[in-house]
């Protein structure tokens, strides 16, 4: 640390001893910890999950090799892989992933657009909160599959059914995320904003919303998980009509054909898409947000 100290004082060229003292103290009290080089960080974060997948595959192979159940009930990894490459080659796997993913993303974005302003109103307007708060929390608990029959009666076997179910799955989580985030804004920060002369709108814009952002992102993450799940449920139940062929439909087809490998492939694909969205989008956003606020050790 002594080298840092001298660097700090000489850079500031303090005019008097008080300045020098203070610069010295500042240098001593702020620790400049370097982050590990990225290959090491990558090794630490990527290697364990990969290992876990390898272990799971090994267990699967062992169970298959023991022939506890006939092949058509528990097929092995190699057979599932064959089916996956067949579905990939004829393009139906990509089409199913694309159909589901685009539905999921469109439905999720619509939920965000609807849920965000609603969340702010519920969080900020007292009587709305008292009146609708419990209902919204209740909706969050209700599995959105429960909306599928109603949606089919209202919208028939069309994309509207799927979107409706996704919307009902994701929106309550997003609203609750904002409300939770706003509730957790430290009162001290509100007071600081008020003292600085912020009016009601400025307080929301410059203090409450930024302070509630981590809660909002957590709500979005949960909202995505719920919309992806409800989408799959809707696709499994509602097949045919003008509906496109998604991953849920692939799953349902596998069941109809009693082809366990198709079912496996569909399940793994659903899981992979969920993990990829989490890893590629939500995890980095959340990490950045928390690290910036000093809420996460690097």
């Amino acid at each position, binding site marked *: 640390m002594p080298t840092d100290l001298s660097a700090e004082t000489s*850079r*500031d060229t*303090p005019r008097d001893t*008080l*300045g020098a*003292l*203070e*610069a010295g*103290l*500042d240098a001593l*009290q*702020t620790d400049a910890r370097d982050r590990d080089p990225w290959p090491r960080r990558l090794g630490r974060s990527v290697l364990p999950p990969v290992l876990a997948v390898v272990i799971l595959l090994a267990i699967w192979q062992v169970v298959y090799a023991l022939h506890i159940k006939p092949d058509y009930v528990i097929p092995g990894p190699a057979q599932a892989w064959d089916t996956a490459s067949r579905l990939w080659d004829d393009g139906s796997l990509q089409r199913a992933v694309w159909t589901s993913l685009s539905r999921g993303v469109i439905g999720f974005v619509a939920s965000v657009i609807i849920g965000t302003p609603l969340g702010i109103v519920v969080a900020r307007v007292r009587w709305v909160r008292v009146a609708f708060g419990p209902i919204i929390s209740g909706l969050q608990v209700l599995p959105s599959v429960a909306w599928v029959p109603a949606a089919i009666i209202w919208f028939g076997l069309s994309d509207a059914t799927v979107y409706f179910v996704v919307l009902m799955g994701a929106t309550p989580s997003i609203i609750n995320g904002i409300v939770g985030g706003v509730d957790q804004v430290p009162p*001290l*920060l509100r*007071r*600081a*904003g*008020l*003292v*600085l*002369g*912020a009016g009601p709108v*400025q307080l929301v814009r*410059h*203090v409450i919303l*930024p*302070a509630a*952002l981590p809660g909002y992102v957590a709500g979005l993450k949960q909202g995505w998980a719920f919309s992806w799940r409800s989408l799959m449920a809707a696709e499994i139940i509602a097949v045919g009509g003008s509906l496109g062929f998604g991953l849920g439909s692939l799953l349902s087809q596998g069941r109809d054909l009693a082809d366990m490998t198709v079912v496996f492939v569909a399940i793994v694909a659903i899981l992979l898409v969920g993990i990829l969205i989490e890893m590629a989008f939500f995890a980095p956003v959340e990490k950045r947000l928390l690290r*910036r*606020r*000093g809420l996460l050790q690097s």
Partner: protein
Amino acid sequence: MTTTDATTEPAEAAPGAVPADGPAPAVRVSDVTKRFSSSGPAVLDGVSIDIRPGEFVCLLGASGCGKSTLLGIVAGLDRPTSGTVEVGGAPAKAGRASLMFQESALFPWLTARRNIELALKLNGVGRATRAERATELLDLVRLSSAGDKLVHELSGGMRQRVALARALAQDSPVLLMDEPFAALDAITRDLLHDELERIWRETGRTIVFITHNVREAVRLGQRVLLMSSRPGRIVREWPVVVTGERRIEAPEVAALAAEITTHLREEIRRHAH
């Protein structure tokens, strides 16, 4: 939790008030009483204080004497149950006086510089001059090289200096400070006393400084007001006259601090039964 009858307290020559022929006060607290519920005990009871423009007043009292409640009322964050508060001749309102808290209360999603710029923005300073003003303020608290640091990357002392710069950005003549150095280590606190005194002299602000540290009050204030607890009242005041450089270890500071401590302890003892 007995409410001791404090009516026996002999009335000093109206502690807190300034002579009638002085200049118009920067802060005038008139007969302020505060109860948190209509039937509850008075937290503040008939508090009156006049503070001259440019004066540095320290408000001293044991924990729970209502010092922070009083400051919140002067800052316009809370309303008194009865009585009035004027800041710069107008009724107290949030945003009229700046306020520093024990914790820095900086916005953790912004850098030091952005925190100051937000204060300038809320104070109606135009975009063009904001960056320049923020640089000046960072210079004033000697943090010109730390402007782009995030709040969690700053030490406690640095955060309080940024908070001070942010409070000064408000450009209010009155600066209220609620135990701003209480959570800092002794070395940093000593330095910040010197810093605050320098900045007070450079900016000519009126400062109301709350503390439960007697020496700190004598070190910094031109006037020290002692508050009683339950109900909170101003019971005594001391002018601080120090010749030469005032330091926390100066014998004059120590002597006055000892006298004030005696009175403070007397106040606290009254609650023993």
